[in-house]
C-alpha cells in the first residue's frame, strides 16, 4: 500500500525509496523550466524539490547546520604524465604568446579540461554521511525511512557496537552492519496471500503438534508411538519399490528445470518446481536407514546429498572403465568396490550404517544402467554437466530454502522494481553476503562526475545550492 503522506501522485515528490510509485514519479519528472519566475522562486522551488529527496527525514534546521559551501573534489592524476613533465613545460611561455600546438597528445589533461567538475551536485553530500542514508545507499534497506527504522530498532552496528542514532555521522573507515535477516526482509519480495495462509497453517500445525506432544508425554503410551513408526516404515518400504534409476532421472529433470533461468518463468511456477525438487530429494533420503533424523535438519540433508554426489563422482570413472570392457562388467564393477557390495547386502538385511545405503542404491542404479542395452539413456544420466546441474540445484536449495517462518516470500527473490534503483556509490565498499559495508571516504566530485546519487541535474542543484549559500 502506498504511503499517501510521502508518495503523492498529484504533486509528485521523489523520495529515497524503491517503491513502484516512486519509480512512476521518477519516470515523469521533467527538467524544470522557470520561465518568468523570480530568482527567489527558482531557488525556493529547486531547494524544496531537492530536499524532498535528500534527507527528507532530517529537519530543515539540522540540515542547514550541516550544509557546507566547501565541496570536496579530486582530480584523477596519471603517474605517467607526471613523470614526463614536472610542470615546467605547462607553465613555460605563459603570457608571452607561446601557446600549445593544436593536437597535443595530452589526453588526460584534455579529458579533464573537457569536463567541468559538477560542484553544485555535491550540495547534499554532507547528508550522505548519515548512517541511515548510508544504509539505504548500500542497498540494505528499501528506503531511507526503513533504514532509519532499522537503526532505531537496534538492528545496526557500527564497528561492531550497536548504534541507535540514525543521525550518526559516519567517519571514514567506519564499518556498519545490518542484521542479514532484516535486509532479506527489506529487499525481498513480500509474501502473497497464499503464502500468508500457508504460514498461518504451519504455525497452527506447529502449535497443534506441540500440544499433541505434550499430551503424548502425559499419556506416556510408548506402544502407540512404536506402532506409528512401524506404519511409516511400511510406507517407506512401499516407496522403495520404485526403481532408483527413475527417481534419479526425475531428480535430474527437476534440477534442470530449476537451473533453467528463463525470464518468462513465473516465480510461482519456479517455486512449485523447487518444492517438488525438495520433496524428491527428501524421498531419496528417506530411503536411507536414518531417514527420520536426516530429513529434519536441512544442513545435514545437504551434507548427505553432497556426499551422495561425491560418491557418484568417484564411481563414474570406474563405471566408464567397466563400459569399455566386455559384457560381464557389472560384476567387476561391484567387485572393485567390495565395501559397497557389503553394504548392499547389509541393506538387504536392513541393518545399514548411515551413508552406505545411498551409495549402494547408486551402485545398483549404475549396475542396472550398465546391464541395460539402452546405453544412450545411461550416458545422459551420467554426464559431468548433469552432475554439475544437480549439484548447483542442491546448493541453491541449501542457500535459498523454502521456509514459511520467514517474513518474506521464500525462496527469497528480489522485490519488484528493485533493479531500477540498484546502484552502489564508490565511497562505500559493501559486502552483501554479511550485509556489512565500510564508509571509505566522504563523497567527492571529479571532472564530469559526482558521487552523490541524486535524481536531479545541475538545473535543480545549482539554485538549491544558492538557496543554502545565502547568509542568514
Amino acid at each position: 500500500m502506498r504511503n499517501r503522506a510521502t508518495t503523492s501522485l498529484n504533486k509528485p515528490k521523489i523520495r529515497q525509496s524503491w517503491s513502484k510509485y516512486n519509480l512512476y514519479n521518477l519516470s515523469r519528472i521533467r527538467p524544470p523550466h522557470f520561465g518568468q519566475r523570480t530568482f527567489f522562486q527558482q531557488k525556493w522551488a529547486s531547494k524544496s524539490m531537492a530536499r524532498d529527496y535528500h534527507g527528507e527525514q532530517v529537519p530543515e534546521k539540522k540540515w542547514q547546520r550541516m550544509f557546507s559551501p566547501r565541496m570536496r573534489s579530486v582530480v584523477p592524476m596519471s603517474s605517467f604524465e607526471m613523470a614526463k613533465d614536472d610542470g615546467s613545460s605547462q607553465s613555460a611561455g605563459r603570457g608571452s604568446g607561446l601557446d600549445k600546438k593544436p593536437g597535443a597528445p595530452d589526453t588526460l589533461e584534455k579529458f579533464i579540461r573537457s569536463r567541468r567538475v559538477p560542484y553544485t551536485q555535491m550540495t547534499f553530500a554532507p547528508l550522505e554521511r548519515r548512517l541511515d542514508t548510508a544504509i539505504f545507499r548500500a542497498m540494505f534497506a528499501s528506503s531511507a525511512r526503513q533504514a532509519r527504522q532499522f537503526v532505531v530498532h537496534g538492528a545496526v552496528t557500527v564497528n561492531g557496537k550497536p548504534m541507535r542514532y540514525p543521525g550518526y555521522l559516519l567517519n571514514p573507515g567506519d564499518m556498519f552492519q545490518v542484521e542479514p535477516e532484516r535486509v532479506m526482509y527489506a529487499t525481498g519480495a513480500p509474501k502473497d496471500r497464499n503464502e500468508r495462509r500457508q504460514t498461518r497453517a504451519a504455525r497452527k500445525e506447529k502449535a497443534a503438534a506441540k500440544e499433541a506432544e505434550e499430551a503424548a508425554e502425559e499419556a506416556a503410551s510408548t506402544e502407540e508411538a512404536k506402532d506409528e513408526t512401524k506404519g511409516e516404515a511400511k510406507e517407506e518400504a512401499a516407496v522403495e519399490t520404485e526403481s532408483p534409476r527413475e527417481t534419479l532421472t526425475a531428480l535430474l529433470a527437476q534440477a534442470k528445470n530449476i537451473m533453467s533461468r528463463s525470464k518468462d518463468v513465473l516465480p510461482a511456477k519456479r517455486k512449485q518446481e523447487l518444492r517438488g525438487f525438495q520433496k524428491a530429494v527428501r524421498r531419496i533420503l528417506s530411503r536411507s536407514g536414518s531417514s527420520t533424523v536426516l530429513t529434519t535438519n536441512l544442513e545435514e540433508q545437504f551434507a548427505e546429498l553432497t556426499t551422495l554426489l561425491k560418491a557418484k563422482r568417484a564411481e563414474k570413472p570406474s563405471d566408464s572403465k567397466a563400459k569399455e570392457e566386455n559384457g560381464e562388467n557389472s560384476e567387476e564393477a561391484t567387485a572393485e568396490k567390495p565395501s559397497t557390495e557389503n553394504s548392499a547386502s547389509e541393506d538387504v538385511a536392513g541393518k545399514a550404517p548411515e551413508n552406505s545405503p545411498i551409495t549402494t542404491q547408486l551402485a545398483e542404479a549404475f549396475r542396472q544402467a550398465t546391464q541395460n542395452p539402452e546405453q544412450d539413456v545411461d550416458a545422459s544420466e551420467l554426464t559431468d554437466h548433469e552432475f554439475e546441474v544437480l549439484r548447483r540445484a542442491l546448493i541453491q536449495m541449501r542457500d535459498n530454502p523454502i521456509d514459511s517462518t520467514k517474513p518474506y516470500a521464500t525462496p527469497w527473490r528480489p522485490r519488484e522494481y528493485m533493479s531500477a534503483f540498484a546502484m552502489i556509490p564508490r565511497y562505500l565498499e559493501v559486502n552483501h553476503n554479511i550485509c556489512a559495508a565500510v564508509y571509505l571516504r566522504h563523497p567527492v566530485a571529479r571532472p564530469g562526475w559526482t558521487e552523490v546519487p541524486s535524481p536531479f541535474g545541475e538545473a535543480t542543484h545549482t539554485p538549491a545550492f544558492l538557496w543554502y549559500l545565502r547568509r542568514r
Partner: protein
Amino acid sequence: MFKWLNAQGSEFKHHTPGETNYLSKLDPKLNEKNANGILEKPFPLNLSFRSEPILSEDLRNEIYNRVVRMQRSVRGVSVELGVDMRRVAAVVRLVELENKMKEQGKSLAIPYARAIHEMVPTTPLYDDAREYRSNPHENINDLPVHRLTDPQIFYPVSESRQFNRIDAGRAFSGAPALLHRDAARMAAEPDETIRRITQGDFRQIETVGKGEDEQQVLLPADARIPHPHLIANDRNRISHGMTEPGLVRTKYYKRLDQEMEVDQKRKERAQQRRERTIHKVQPENSRFEFRFRDAVVSAQTTGANGRGSQAPGHRYGVPSYDRKKGQVKIPTRVKV
C-alpha cells in the same frame, strides 16, 4: 499510473542478470551503453551521476588472498589490481568478518548478494594482469583538491627559471620562492626530493605564517597523491624501460619494500609514542587496570584566568553547552 506500470514500467519489474535496468533505458537519447556494454546512468535527469561497477566476488577474494595469505603489502596489491588502498583495506576487513560469521554458523544473505551482483555492474577478475592497467576498477592516484588551490593567482616568474609543481605549491601557500641553488638541486633529482617528503617526518615540512595562521607549505601534487612511488617508476620506465626492463622492475619492488618499511616504522613509532605517555598499573587486588596519562598544569595550559582549555579536568566558571540547541549530542565516533 498502473497504465504506465503495466506498459513501459513492466520492464523494470524484474531484472536481467548481468545487465543494469535503469530508467534511462526508456529515453532513446540516453540509451547509450559504455565501453563495457552497460547502461550506466540511473537517473534520466542527472547526467553527471553514473552507477559505477563494484568489485566482483572473485576479485574480492583475490584481494583478500594476496593481502592475507600471500602477505603482500596493501600498496602493492592496490597497484596490481587497480583498486584504491582504502578499498583494499576495507575488503580485507569485510572478508575477515565474513569468515568469522561463517565460523560462528551465522546465517548469511547469499541469495540477496547474488541478486545484487546480477543487477549492478561489476569489475571481474581478469586473467590477464595487463587488463588491470588498461581497465582498472578505479583511478588509484586521485589528487584531492586543496583549499589553497582554489583562488587563481597571478604569479610572475622570470624566464630564466623553470616553474614546476614544487614552486606552484609554494606560490599557492604564499611561501617565498626557493633559492636558485635549492631549486636546481631538487629539479636534478626529483625522485629523491619526493621520497624525502613522503617518507620523512611530516613535522619537518616547512611552514609559513605566524601564530594561528601558521600552516604547512602546500606540497607538490607528486607528494600528495596516494602512490608517489609510481611516478618514480614511470620516470624509470621512460628512461630505461626499453633497454633494461628487468632493472626497472627490481627497482619498483625495492621502492615498494621501502614504502612498506617506512609505513611499518611510522606505525611502530606512533605506538611507542602512545605508550610512552601512558603508565599502566595492574594492582593485584583489583579487577581493573589503571592508566595514568601525563597532564601538564602550568600557566601556559590554565591561562591567566585559569580557564584555559589545555589544562586537565572540568573547568570552573565556564558554561558547558552540552544541552544547548545545535550542539551534537550523539556519539561522533565509535572506536574500532
